């Protein structure tokens, strides 16, 4: 059993909200996709499973919102990278009539994420902005070096997906942020 201050530290660090959001996203998306894909031949308890899946996604969203409200970037960036992995943009091509809807939805979510991040950055102080600047610069460098290396071996490597590039950029931004935070002895 964790003591009061230890529990408070866990909540303050955002680790709990991060884990909750990851688990609920994974469970919710898995349940929702698994049941919705079989809508013509629904499994027993299909409707209830869809509801549970959607409920889990709502809980995941609440946990992400708690992280965003507290401005805990050290967990927000890997969470964004993880959520990107759950997106299946290729699915839009399967159902021609839904292509526009999927595209608009993806764009809306991306714009919302960028707006939330811009708002958080405006709220942060000068040192935290500097941490992000240096972290993002590190991410950009990793992306550039990775792109050049990929271009050199393009014929021998598997086809690159934009989704993976975005995940790598987000994760390297996060690593850069943590490394810079360590340099300034900022407890990220």
């Amino acid at each position: 059993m964790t003591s009061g201050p230890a529990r408070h530290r866990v909540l303050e660090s955002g680790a709990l909200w991060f884990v909750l959001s990851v688990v609920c996203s994974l469970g919710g998306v898995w349940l929702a996709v698994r049941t919705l894909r079989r809508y013509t031949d629904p499994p027993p308890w299909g409707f209830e499973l869809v509801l549970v899946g959607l409920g889990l996604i709502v809980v995941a969203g609440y946990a992400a919102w708690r992280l965003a409200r507290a401005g805990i970037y050290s967990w927000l960036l890997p969470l964004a990278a993880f959520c990107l992995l759950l997106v299946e943009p290729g699915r839009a091509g399967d159902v021609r009539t839904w292509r526009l809807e999927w595209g608009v939805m993806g764009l809306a979510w991306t714009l919302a994420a960028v707006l939330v991040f811009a708002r958080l950055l405006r709220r942060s102080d000068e040192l935290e902005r500097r941490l992000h600047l240096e972290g993002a610069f590190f991410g950009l460098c990793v992306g550039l070096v990775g792109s050049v290396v990929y271009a050199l071996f393009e014929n021998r490597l598997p086809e690159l997906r934009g989704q993976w590039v975005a995940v790598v950029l987000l994760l390297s931004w996060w690593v850069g942020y943590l490394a810079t935070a360590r340099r300034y002895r900022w407890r990220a």
Partner: protein
Amino acid sequence: MKNHLRVLRAERDWSQADLAERLSVSRQTVNAIENERYDPSLPLAFAIARIFALRIEDVFTPDVEPPPDVEPPPDVEPPLDLTSGR
């Protein structure tokens, strides 16, 4: 840049969180400045000096002292005489 933030804070019995709240920055930023890991921007340095009712050079001192042949600026500058013309 060196600073006397820890001493000034202790004299007033303020925690890092108290000072951070007065400056509208995070406690980690106060900690980084206090440990001389981060040099604040000019506006933040002025805000810190104002909060302690001191001059900026009473709170922060440069790592490298100016060369001895450079005269320190006078404490109070004479007001500009704008009426004298040429």
